[in-house]
């Protein structure tokens, strides 16, 4: 029996800020340019990958975030049993990669998802993020790829003052410490 180890295993609360790790969640990187690719993904997941930059689409199970004109990040809303993550991956891999219409790569452990919520969420991010959140924070389901304290992150605006943040696993400890340190001053 192997032990599952997520890097954070914690949640913190500050003045109008809550930060928590939400793992394990399934994450797949989807890439494709062909129309068949979009059709296939739509058929398999009942979600059409969004074509508008920096947007997302989703249903009760999954979200698909636009990353570039031919790249999306799919993630599950709920925590999953990691042993079963390969089922969807294999299905999509067979339907997409093996059918030569695109690429499917499992990035479940590549990204760590943090949830940040509370009234001071965007003020916290602005302590280390050069992105202009003025429109983003009012656009539900908006997506952006930016830097927080020089670390690459993907942000998915779930709801008012409630977002999911994806950071590469190797950076997650550092970013977690940094976010907590920054939150002290709110």
């Amino acid at each position, binding site marked *: 029996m192997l032990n599952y180890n997520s890097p954070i295993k914690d949640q913190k609360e500050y003045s109008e800020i809550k930060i928590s790790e939400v793992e*394990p969640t399934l994450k797949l990187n989807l890439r494709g340019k062909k129309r068949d690719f979009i059709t296939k993904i739509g058929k398999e997941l009942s979600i059409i990958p969004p074509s508008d930059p920096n947007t997302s689409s989703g249903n009760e199970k999954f979200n698909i975030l636009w990353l570039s004109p031919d790249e999306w990040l799919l993630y599950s809303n709920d925590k999953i049993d990691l042993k079963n993550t390969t089922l969807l991956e294999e299905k999509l891999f067979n339907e997409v990669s093996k059918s*030569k219409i695109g690429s499917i790569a*499992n990035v479940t*452990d590549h990204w760590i998802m943090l949830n940040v919520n509370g009234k001071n969420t965007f003020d916290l991010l602005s302590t280390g993020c050069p992105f202009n959140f003025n429109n983003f924070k009012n656009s539900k389901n908006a997506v952006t790829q930016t830097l927080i*304290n020089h670390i690459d992150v993907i942000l998915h605006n779930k709801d008012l003052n409630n977002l999911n943040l994806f950071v590469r696993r*190797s950076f997650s400890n550092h970013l977690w410490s940094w976010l907590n340190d920054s939150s002290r001053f709110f």
Partner: protein
Amino acid sequence: MSKDLRITNNKFIDQTTRISFKFDGKTLYGFKGDTLASALLANNIHLVGRSFKYHRPRGIMACGSEEPNAIVQVGSDASMTEPNTRVTEIELYEGLEATSQNCWPSVNFDIGAINNFFSPLIPAAFYYKTFMWPANFWKLYEYFIRKSAGLGKSPTKPDKDIYDHRYLHCDVLVVGGGISGIMAAKTAAKNNLNTVLIDDKINLGGTTLFQQNECFKINNTYSNEWLKKEIESLNSLKNLTIKTRTSLAAYHSYNYLLARENLTDHLDINEKKDKVRQRLWKIRAKKVIISTGAMERPLIFNNNDRPGIMLSSSIKKYIDYYGVKCGQKISLFTNNDSAYETAISLNNSGVNVNSVIDIRDKTNSIIVKQAEELGIKIHWKSSIVNTNGYKKINSIEIMKLTDDGAAVVGEKIKEQCDCLGISGGWTPRVHLFTQSGGKLKFRDEDNVFLPDKSELDQISIGSCNGDFELDDVIKNSVTLTNKFLNVDNNDYENLEIISSKETTKKNIWLLPSDKLLSKAKQFLDFQNDSTANDIKLALREGFKSIEHVKRYTTTGMATDQGKLSNMHALGIIAETAGVKMGELGTTTFRPPYTPLTFGAIVGRNVGEFFDITRKTPIHDWHVENKAEFENVGQWKRAWYYPKKNESMHDAVQRESKAARDSAGMLDASTLGKIDIQGTDASEFLNRVYTNAWSKLEIGKCRYGLMLNEDGMVYDDGVTTRLGENHYIMTTTTGGAANVLSKLEDYLQTEWPELDVYLTSVTDQFATISICGPNSKKILTKVIPDLDLSDKEFPHMSFKNASINNIKCRVMRISFTGEHSYEINIQSSFGKSVWEKCFEAGKEFNITPYGTETMHLLRAEKGFIITGQDTDGTMTPVDLQMDWIISKKKYDFIGKRSLYRSDTIRDDRKQLVGLITEDPKEVLEEGAQIVSEINKKPVEMLGHVTSSYFSPNLNKSIALAVVKNGKNLKGHKMFVPMKNKTINVTITDSVFLDKDNKRLNA
């Protein structure tokens, strides 16, 4: 506090709350809302410091950031003390301690003042001229010069304060909260623009805030009362953010600005604890409105630097805002109407104004008439030719000016005074405009540089744009703001404005004296002690460019950046050289506008946040097992695992031996991993790597070298074919991000026809490498159902497998030359699999090893490390890896460059092995290699790139790059070191197991 110097004025300071502070060890008192400057003046203290060069007594001169003289050391704590702080910008708080700078033993008795007596002998550039020889004595000179000059003391311990950064985006940023800035901010916010208004003071309002004079009225109310209502109305505007105590430090291209907000500097010491002291705002504004106002100029005359000589407008602010009289018998010296505002304010507050000395012939403006009606004596067409009083001014000497203003004539009148206000006109604060790249124009009428052209979306309004009369400020600001914001705001359309108009202007940059110029002390740059005479000397010595004169005389190079001195320096240069000021131009205005603390610049990037760190999924195990770490890129990699009292050398020797004798394990998770899919994946690899990939079978691995366009080795790694159109590429740890960017760039721009998709999966997998003769046995225990026979699982192949139902990929590849496997498994299970392997390997004495042992093991086999054995100038041929260059392929990145005349030279540096004559002598990496010891100049043939003592070979080994190295095998060479010369022999770069028997064992 001297009761005589305070008047009742509770508008802006709280005279019911007394605050104690210490200055030069003496306990004094002020009120809440005071600055240190106003509190010192209220205590009748003008002498605050000594000047930089001549150690002349200096006092408070201004009331803002332009203060050149009164700079002090704040605090005495070794970690918190701060030098060079202007007393005019320090808000008074309980427990404040400040001391004078640049004096010893005290500000009242300063030994350094002897310099003043020798001042004729130490003119501008004295140090440059005197201490340039003998050159090697400079270290000695420097010590004494620095000790005698001094600019306060830096803290010697780490700063305990907390600093923060924050980004801010807005539609409109208004810099400066004077009357024009307030109107502009209100206009912007009312028109639904997200607006930010910043001001460095505690209160908005600028000088109009305390301008209560019949000559300045708006809609029949005093201008200050009208403005107060405007300020109150800002509170209801939702789109407006106001930041006071916030100083704009820098204005960069594309409307990117930096502002420092002081958050706790004004709080009592106990209240500051655990709070952010200063915050640096990084602002991106779509539009910027600069309304930074103007600075009053001093006048340049003999002995114009004594304590008690102050800017006239500052005297006005101290009385009208702080309720502090700067003196009991005040004289004023001016060339414009502003000083009369001060005279009236002083008169209204009951302060005796001796007289106003005005260089103009006569003027009939309303405000001057008002002053005359109050009985204030005016010396028209006169100048001050001298001042007296060593530690504080006690009298002035006045003479009549000639018609042309070039000389003084007639009787010298001596007037007793304890304070002198001077006003030489106004200089628009164009610093931010020019920092942003804006070009200035010169207005001859009143000798001012004004904003002209800018590439950015910005305007300047109010006094910083050359409007000095109240009605001009309001009307022009409104017009410019409406046009700039493309709005039609009528709020200020029908204002009735009463404003005194200045009808006569006269300017003399260097006022004449009854003494010879060389005998007079007419200070231009008060902080750096440069005089008009210094400027003239520089011109006589041939310096013409303002930039050269500035550096020769140090005018404008002090911490105040010449805010008060630059215009006069330019004026005197222009007059002396006979050129127009506008043609002369200005010196360069550089950020920051006012000094920034290092803390504000650094923010929270200190301690654990100094640099970003990356950790592998197995990091915690390494920590638990006492690994020492090294930084590789941002990664923290286990370097070696010392056992009790073991040195690094001993640990590495033990780990290396164990890996060769039985088994070793390495956390290789940091290697870059790129998932490659698409129908053209094989063709893509053909173009990326120097060798051929089309025929690589599914399930097989291949080593590849990636070149830059110039043919030099860029990266290397093993790529595995997982399926027909599916590969996984590994890259070097440090090169992973750059390789992915480069490949993606090629796909998007050079090879868009290829059907290939790349995904970074570096963090998806933990990589555990097990090597050594017993590695197979250990892996069999970990994955019992995997057939590890050489036939089924030969070297350079891969298998899908699972460990306790978790899928993984196992590659049989080796970076040590040993029989090795790499397990790639989801990162979440990496630590658990590592522990499982370690447990399984215990019976074989499996030994975890770090990067240092990894380096040694691969060097024994002659495997290169990109970036260590290569440096961006090595081709595959230089590395003696000709075998990896496909001759059949049509093209690959860098192919053409491999056949340039320079890259095919025989005498290029080539990778070789080195063996030392003494097998125990370990060479230093980076050491130079020569063939002849005594040849001069020394011909350096190459250098050592990797060097270790190999416990497995029981001798020292090294890799090196040597000119024409591959033809020099067996040749003796020398490695000269500081105290000895080491004899070496060039060998093959493979030291161990040349037949790869261990690899396939």
